[in-house]
C-alpha cells in the first residue's frame, strides 16, 4: 500500500504520522474482525441451523387443512332416503375486516333477528382464537336471510355466508330412536380407543344406527396443504393431499311405507312396536313413542331444547323398543303353555274350571272375567286369556320349568339387535331371587309370573323375536336393521344373509296348539279380534299388564283399572309360513285387544297390500307394451 505521508508537508513529525498510520490500521483490523464474526454468524444461521429454520419457515406458511367427508346416507329397504345431508348456511363474521364493531353488531342483530347482546357474546367467544378465524354469528339461516346478506356484501364486507353440510332427518321424528342422531364429539369420547383420529369439533353418531354404524357412515377425512401468507390468508393449495372419502350409504331393512303407517297408527300414544320378517330377522318397522326430532341435535344448539328432551318425564330419548322393560302380561300365557307342554307336565287336553277367582296358598287371585270362564281346555284358556287356568298351571309346573322355557324362548337375554344399550329384561326364578334380593322364592310369586306379572320384565324387541320364533317354528334370527351397505364407489354389497343365533326345539304338536290358540284369539272371538284381516289368518295374543309393579302378591283389583294398564299385542301372520311377526306395546293404553291390536292390524294391512300388489315397475312396463 502506498504510504506517502513521509513526503507530505502536512505532517509535523514522524511520531504523529506513525500514530495515524497505526490507528487507521487498528480500525481496519477491528472492522475485519467484526465482519468475520458476522460471516461466522451467517454460516451458523444458514448452514449449520438451516434445516431448523427451514422447518420454522414451513410452519409459518404451510397449513394442513382437514377436509371433512360427507356422512353416508341412510336408505330404506327400497332405496328411499331416510337420512340425508343438506346444505346449511352459516353467517360468518371476519374480525380482521371489522372496523365499526357496534354498527355491525346493530345491523346484524336486525337482519338476523337476534338480540344485540347475543351477537356481541358470539363475537366475544372467539376472543382467544386467531384473528383470521371467522366467527359463526348464526347457524343454519334460511335461504332468504343468506341471499339478503349476500346482496349486501358491499355495505357489510366483514359478513359472509358459508355453506356447511348438515345431517338432515327429512321425516323428522320418524324412527328417530332407531336412526339416532349426530353431534359434536365429547371430550370423554375423544379419549376412547374407538374414536382415535377424531378431534374436537368433529361430528359423530351419538345414538341409534348413527352411532352403531358410525365407522361406516363417517367416511374418511381428507386433508390438503395450503400456503398462507402472514395474515393467514390462503394463497393456494398444494398438490399434496387426500380427498375426503364420503361415508358408506346404509340400506336398512325398514320399509318406509310400513314405518309411516306405524307412525300414523300410533298417533301420540306412548309405547313401542317392532315388526319383523320371521324368516330373516329383518326389522320392517320400529317405533318408540314419544319421539324427538334428531335435526335438533345436528345444530350447535340452544341448551333449552336439550334440557327439555333430557328432563321430560316421558323420557323421549329412551328407545323403548330395546330399553324399556315391562311386564308381558297375558302374552306370557303362550310361554306358560309351551313350558307345560314341552316339559310334559300337561297336555292340551288339560281342563280346569274358572269360577272367576281362585284361592292358592291362602290367598285370593282374581280372573279378569267376573263370574268366571267356566270349564276350559288349554286352547280356549289362551283364547279367552283365563287367569285362573294359568294360575293353576303355574302352580303345577313350578317356577323352575317356567324360567327354563322363558329363557329358551329368548327372554332374560338381549336379542342382539344392531343397536347399542339393549336391555336383557328379567326372568325370575329361585336363583335369581337369592342373587338379587338374597331371599327365598315365595310360591305366591310363581302365581304372579304365571300370568306375566311379578318380577317378569321383557322388552318389545324380545316380544317381537318371540313371536317370530313361534311363527317360524323355533329359529332365532338376529333382529337387525342393516340390510346392506354401499361399498366404495356406489357398489352395494350383497344383502346380509340372516344370522341364526340359535334354535329352540318345539314339538310340532306344541306349535300346533299354540298357533291354533293364537289364531282363535284373533279370528274366533278371542281377545284380539281387532287385528283380524280376512284371508290372512292373523295369529296373536293380547296382554294387559299392570303398571304398578306387584311386590309379593298380585293386587288383582288393580287389573280392573284398565286405563292404567299397559297394552300388548304380539303375534304373526299368516298362520302357516308367516311373513310378518310383531309386538305392539301401548304404555298405559288399557286393554291389549283395544289399544294395541288395531295398530298391528293397520301395519299388516299395509304390508299385505304391498305384498299382493304387483310391483309398480311391472305395471308401467305392461302399460307401455300395450298402448
Amino acid at each position, binding site marked *: *500500500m*502506498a*504510504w*506517502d505521508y513521509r*513526503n*507530505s508537508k*502536512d*505532517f*509535523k*513529525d514522524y*511520531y*504523529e504520522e506513525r*500514530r*495515524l*498510520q497505526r*490507528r*487507521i490500521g487498528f*480500525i*481496519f483490523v477491528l*472492522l*475485519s474482525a*467484526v*465482519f468475520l464474526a*458476522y*460471516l461466522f*454468524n*451467517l*454460516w451458523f*444461521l*444458514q*448452514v449449520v*441451523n*438451516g*434445516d*431448523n*429454520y*427451514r422447518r*420454522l*419457515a*414451513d410452519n*409459518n*406458511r404451510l397449513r394442513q387443512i382437514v377436509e371433512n367427508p360427507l356422512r353416508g346416507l341412510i336408505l330404506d329397504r327400497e332405496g328411499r332416503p331416510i337420512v340425508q345431508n343438506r346444505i346449511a348456511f352459516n353467517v360468518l363474521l371476519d374480525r380482521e375486516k371489522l372496523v365499526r364493531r357496534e354498527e355491525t353488531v346493530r345491523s346484524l342483530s336486525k337482519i338476523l333477528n337476534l338480540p344485540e347482546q347475543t351477537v356481541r357474546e358470539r363475537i366475544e367467544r372467539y376472543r382467544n382464537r386467531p384473528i383470521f378465524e371467522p366467527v359463526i354469528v348464526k347457524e343454519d339461516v334460511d335461504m332468504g336471510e343468506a341471499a339478503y346478506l349476500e346482496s349486501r356484501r358491499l355495505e357489510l364486507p366483514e359478513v359472509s355466508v358459508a355453506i356447511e353440510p348438515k345431517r338432515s332427518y327429512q321425516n323428522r321424528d320418524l324412527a328417530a330412536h332407531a336412526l339416532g342422531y349426530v353431534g359434536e364429539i365429547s371430550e370423554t369420547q375423544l379419549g376412547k380407543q374407538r374414536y382415535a383420529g377424531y378431534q374436537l369439533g368433529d361430528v359423530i353418531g351419538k345414538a341409534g344406527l348413527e352411532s352403531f354404524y358410525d365407522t361406516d357412515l363417517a367416511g374418511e377425512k381428507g386433508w390438503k396443504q395450503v*400456503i*398462507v*401468507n*402472514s*395474515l393467514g390468508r390462503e*394463497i393456494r393449495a398444494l398438490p399434496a393431499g387426500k380427498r375426503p372419502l364420503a361415508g358408506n350409504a346404509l340400506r336398512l331393512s325398514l320399509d318406509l311405507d310400513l314405518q309411516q303407517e306405524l307412525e300414523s297408527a300410533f298417533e301420540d300414544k306412548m309405547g313401542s312396536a317392532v315388526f319383523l320378517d320371521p324368516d330373516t330377522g329383518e326389522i320392517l318397522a320400529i317405533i318408540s313413542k314419544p319421539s324427538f326430532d334428531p335435526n335438533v341435535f345436528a345444530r350447535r344448539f340452544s341448551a333449552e331444547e336439550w334440557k327439555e328432551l333430557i328432563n321430560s318425564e316421558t323420557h323421549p330419548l329412551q328407545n323403548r323398543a330395546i330399553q324399556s322393560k315391562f311386564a308381558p302380561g297375558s302374552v306370557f300365557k303362550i310361554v306358560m303353555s309351551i313350558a307345560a307342554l314341552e316339559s310334559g307336565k300337561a297336555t292340551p287336553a288339560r281342563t280346569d274350571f274358572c269360577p272367576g277367582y281362585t284361592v292358592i296358598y291362602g290367598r285370593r287371585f282374581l280372573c279378569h272375567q267376573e263370574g268366571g270362564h267356566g270349564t276350559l281346555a288349554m286352547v280356549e284358556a289362551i283364547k279367552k286369556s283365563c287367569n285362573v287356568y294359568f294360575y293353576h298351571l303355574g302352580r303345577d309346573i313350578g317356577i323352575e320349568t317356567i324360567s327354563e322355557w322363558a329363557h329358551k324362548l329368548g327372554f332374560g337375554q338381549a336379542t342382539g339387535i344392531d343397536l347399542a344399550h339393549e336391555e336383557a329384561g328379567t326372568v325370575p326364578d329361585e336363583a335369581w331371587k337369592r342373587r338379587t334380593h338374597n331371599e327365598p322364592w315365595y310360591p305366591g310369586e310363581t302365581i304372579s309370573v304365571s300370568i306375566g306379572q311379578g318380577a317378569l320384565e321383557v322388552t318389545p324387541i324380545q316380544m317381537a323375536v318371540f313371536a317370530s320364533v313361534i311363527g317360524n317354528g323355533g329359529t332365532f334370527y338376529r333382529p337387525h336393521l342393516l340390510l346392506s351397505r354401499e361399498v366404495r364407489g356406489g357398489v352395494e354389497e350383497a344383502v346380509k344373509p340372516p344370522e341364526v343365533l340359535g334354535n329352540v326345539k318345539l314339538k310340532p304338536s306344541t306349535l300346533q296348539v299354540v298357533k291354533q290358540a293364537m289364531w282363535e284369539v284373533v279370528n274366533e272371538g278371542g281377545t284380539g279380534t281387532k287385528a283380524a284381516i280376512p284371508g290372512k289368518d292373523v295369529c296373536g295374543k293380547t296382554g294387559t299388564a299392570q303398571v304398578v309393579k306387584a311386590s309379593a302378591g298380585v293386587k288383582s283389583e288393580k287389573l280392573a283399572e284398565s286405563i292404567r294398564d299397559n297394552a300388548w299385542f304380539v303375534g304373526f301372520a299368516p298362520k302357516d309360513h308367516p311373513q310378518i311377526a310383531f309386538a305392539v306395546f301401548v304404555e298405559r293404553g288399557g286393554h291389549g285387544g283395544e289399544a294395541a291390536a288395531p295398530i298391528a292390524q293397520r301395519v299388516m294391512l299395509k304390508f299385505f297390500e304391498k305384498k299382493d300388489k304387483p310391483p309398480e315397475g311391472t305395471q308401467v312396463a305392461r302399460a307401455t307394451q300395450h298402448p
Partner: protein
Amino acid sequence: MLERRSIHNLDWVLAFAVLSLCAAGMGMVYSATLGGPLTPLATKQIVYFAIGLAAMILALAVDYHTLASLSYVFYAASLLLLVYLLIFGRAIANTRGWLELGPVNFQPAEMTKITTLLALSSYLSRNRSSGLTPSNMLAIIVIVGIPFLLIARQPDLGTAITFLPLIAVAAFLGGMRVRTIFVLVMIPILALPFFWNHYLKDYQKTRVLTFLDPSRDPKGAGYQVLQSRIAVGSGGLTGKGFLEGTQGQLKFLPAQHTDFIFALMAEERGFLGSMVVLVLYFVVIYRCIAIARAARDLLGVYLAMGAMALFACQVLINIGVVLGLMPTTGVPLPLMSYGGSSLITTLAGMGLVLNVWMRRLVN
C-alpha cells in the same frame, strides 16, 4: 476541474463494489415488492440510483479542497433545514424527518451526514495539533452533536446514532490518548443502569428487552427479529431462489424492502449470496481505508475515514439487527435498502472518497 489524468486514477475496485451492491439492492427491492401494491418501487429505486450516480460524479469531480472550503456553508444550510423540520415539519410515521417537496419526499438527515463530514474534516485539517487538544475535542462534539440532537428530536434516534462514529473516528485519529479512550469506554458501561432508568422511553426499553429475548413477545416486538432470523436461516447454503423466498414473498418478513432487505436477500440467495454481499461491503470499507492511507493530506484522511465510518456503522448495525445481534433500530442498509435519501447520500459519500483517491498525488 476534472482532469483527464484523474479519470485514469479512478478506484475501479471501489466503484465496482459500490455499483454491484446497488444492482443487488435494486433486484431485492423488486423481489420484496413483487405482487404487492409497492411494485413500482423498484422502478423508483432505479431513478434514485441515477440521481445518486449524478451526486457521486459531482462529489468526485470537484476537488475536495474546494468542497471543504465551502463546507461551513453546506453545514449551516443543512442545520437550518433540520431546524425548519422541527418547527414546521409534518409528522410521517411519528417522526418529523421528511421534507416534502411536491411529489418527492426527502430526508435532510441523510444529506446532513455529508455536510457534517465535510465540516468536521475541514475543521480538523485546519486546526492541527500534536495530540487531541480540548478545544478540538469540543469542536468535534459540537459539530457532530448539533445535527445529532436535532435529528434525535425528530425523533429518529436510529439515524442520529449513525452520526456518532464520526466523533469516535475523529477523536481517535485526532490523537486521543489511549488512557482517555479507556475511561470514555468505561463511563457509559457504568452509567448504563442510570440511563436505562431515567432516559430510555418505554418502547426503547421494550426493543432492548425483546432483543435480549425475542420469545418474550413473538407476536409483537420480538416478531420482527424472529421472522428475520427464520428468513435468513431458512435460506440455507444456496437459498430458495430469486423471488422464491417464502418468508419474504408471503410477507412474514417485516419492512423487507427497507430495513430487512438483507434478510430477504439471505433467504433467496442463501449463505453463498450473503457471503458475496458481505464481502462486497468489506471491499468498500477496505478500499476506503486504503484510500485514507493514500490520501495526500489530512483532509483526505478525515474525509475517507469519516465516510467509511458512516458507511460501516450503518452496514454493521443493519445486518446486526437482521441477524438478531442488536435491537431493532430502523437503520437502512446502505446502497441496498429502498429509499432515495440514503442511496443518494451514500453514493455522494463514496464520491468524496473516490475524489480523495483521484487527487492523492501531489500536483
